[in-house]
């Protein structure tokens, strides 16, 4: 009995020695805190739970908005933040140290409308500009009819519905509008909330979708993840190549097929790809390149990077589709993994 105990003890010491040699850092008891964008929250909640079940690392994610995510990272109160918009150079310079971006999944902004019996409405860049600037006010306007032969459009006022709260969805939509219309860029511009020329504001995706579904003659923009899961009637949007594209997981992913910069900071709206849905974009997780800050342990740093490494793997990306997000293309995942390899703890790479 005593012998057995000694052998067990010896084995235990040996085992711990070996793990010391390999410098394997245990991450199973680590708990991570993150905060940021609400758009990818359903996806993050699902994959983080999966990861906890798999590896043991507990992850708490607070959906407080992209702005809040950036602020939390700047204040160093989270292990990583999340944002629907990448940090511009000026904003990056303001951060206490170097911040890197890891794209985690893709989404799009779809145009939902409420016209009973009118399916497959096609919207060209010109129509989008004129409807959202309030220059076309009736659904049976000659310009809409010309673009939609075969559809019976009612003699009804167009009511534009927009997000009343600040939102990454508005940012992506207005970025696209500014790209396709100089008039929009001059009059309205790009941002998380805008000075809207016409329409009604509603709070959040549910608010906009609810207003549209309850009011005939409305048109508005909502996050693709929300519209896909609610099966909302959406319009086909003309992309850069002139094709009318229905928003789908495949057409959203196609937007990232082109050349992506090494740091992945890019707006994918108005993509060159002929099959792409033009109002698509990445969502990112943001973290510090040097993980030793605020008394963080090597375990915490390693757990963070390992989680993100898994998040960009095909296993986690497959989950994205189940919750109506588009996965990032293979080439982008490789770039994300390269960025993760550059992350250090006290100067030494973690992965």
């Amino acid at each position, binding site marked *: 009995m005593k012998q057995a105990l000694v052998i067990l003890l010896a084995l235990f010491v040996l085992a711990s020695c070996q793990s010391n040699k390999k410098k394997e850092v245990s991450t199973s008891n680590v708990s991570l805190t993150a905060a940021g964008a609400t758009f990818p929250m359903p996806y993050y909640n699902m994959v983080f739970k999966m990861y906890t079940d798999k590896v043991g690392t507990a992850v708490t994610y607070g959906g*407080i*908005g*992209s*702005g*809040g995510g*950036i*602020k939390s990272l700047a204040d160093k109160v989270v292990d990583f933040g999340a944002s629907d918009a990448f940090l511009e150079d000026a904003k990056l310079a303001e951060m206490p140290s170097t911040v890197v971006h890891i794209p985690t999944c893709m989404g799009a902004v779809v145009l939902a409308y409420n016209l009973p019996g009118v399916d497959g409405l096609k919207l060209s860049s010109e129509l989008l500009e004129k409807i959202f600037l309030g220059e076309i006010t009736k659904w049976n306007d000659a310009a809409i009819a010309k673009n939609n032969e075969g559809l019976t459009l009612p003699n009804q006022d167009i*009511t534009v519905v927009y997000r*009343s*709260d*600040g*939102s*990454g969805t508005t940012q992506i939509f207005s970025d696209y509008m500014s790209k396709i219309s100089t008039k929009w860029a001059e009059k*309205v*511009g*790009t*941002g*998380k*909330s*805008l*000075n*809207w020329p016409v*329409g*009604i*504001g*509603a*709070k959040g995706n549910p*608010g906009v979708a*609810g*207003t549209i579904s*309850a*009011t005939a*003659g*409305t048109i508005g923009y909502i996050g693709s993840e929300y519209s896909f899961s609610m099966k909302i009637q959406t319009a086909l949007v003309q992309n850069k190549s002139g094709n009318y594209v229905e928003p789908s997981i495949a057409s959203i992913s196609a937007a990232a097929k082109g050349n992506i910069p090494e740091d992945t900071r890019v707006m994918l709206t108005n993509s060159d790809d002929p099959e792409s849905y033009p109002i698509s974009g990445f969502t990112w997780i943001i973290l510090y390149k040097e993980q030793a800050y605020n008394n963080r342990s090597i375990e915490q740093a390693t757990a963070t990077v390992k989680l993100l490494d898994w998040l960009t793997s095909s296993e986690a990306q497959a989950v994205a589709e189940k919750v109506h997000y588009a996965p990032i293309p293979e080439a982008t995942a490789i770039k994300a993994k390269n960025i993760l390899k550059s992350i250090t703890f006290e100067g030494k790479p973690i992965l």
Partner: protein
Amino acid sequence: MNSDKITKIVLLSVSLIIILIAGGMVFSLVDGAIPAFKHFGLKFIVSNNWDPTEGRENYGALPFIAGTLLTSVLALLIALPLSFSTSLFLGEYFRKTRMAKILGTMVDLLAGIPSIVYGLWGFYTLRPILISMGIGNQGFGVFTASLILAIMIIPYATSLSNEIISMVPADLKEAAYSLGATRLEVITTVTVPAARSGIIAGYILAFGRAIGETMAVTMLIGNANLIPTSIFDTGNSMASLIANQFGEADGLKLSSLIAIGLILLVMTGMINAIGKYIIRKMS
């Protein structure tokens, strides 16, 4: 013998905490609002341009001040005849009847309904009715928001007025009756004058509630950052704007939102002061 002292100390420290909290709130509001007022000056209050687009940020609070005042005053005007007659019904005419008890409970029940439920009811029930009447922009706007606000503030105004009206001494009323006054004359010359300050206090409380209401207003006012040109136009209120924009705001925008919060606080304070002045003048 020490229990008196202990009570004194406890009471003093509790009230000090309240003062500290209130003072801290005012301080942090002022502190947060300084950048906005520094940047825009007093133009912040009178400018009607709210443009959050990066690169040409410009913030003016006037559309929201106008929206808040317009919805609250309109709500008070709509609520006034309803709640005043209800409180007379409960406190005078049908006092202590079964009918009054049922009605009283219903009014109290109205006060307990969360504002989001009012918002939903307004959105799904009231709005379609207004659309079919052709009012507002697809049923959204200042008028719709005021209607909902009016229903929300009725219980506040009614409960307090009812309480005060039923507390008017019976001797006074009996004296009036014995002089040959009719019931209506008793109400107009005895009950209402005697209860006046309490009734006004009830309406001030209700008005304060209307000014600060957020969720139901957001759902119905249309959230357009413009000064409403008519009561059927869309607009936005101060509380609704803050609730909507706070999440993604930073820098100058955040400061502007805090400044609007400060203006809201000052406005509420002013209304309370005016109310107290009126009460003092009348009693």
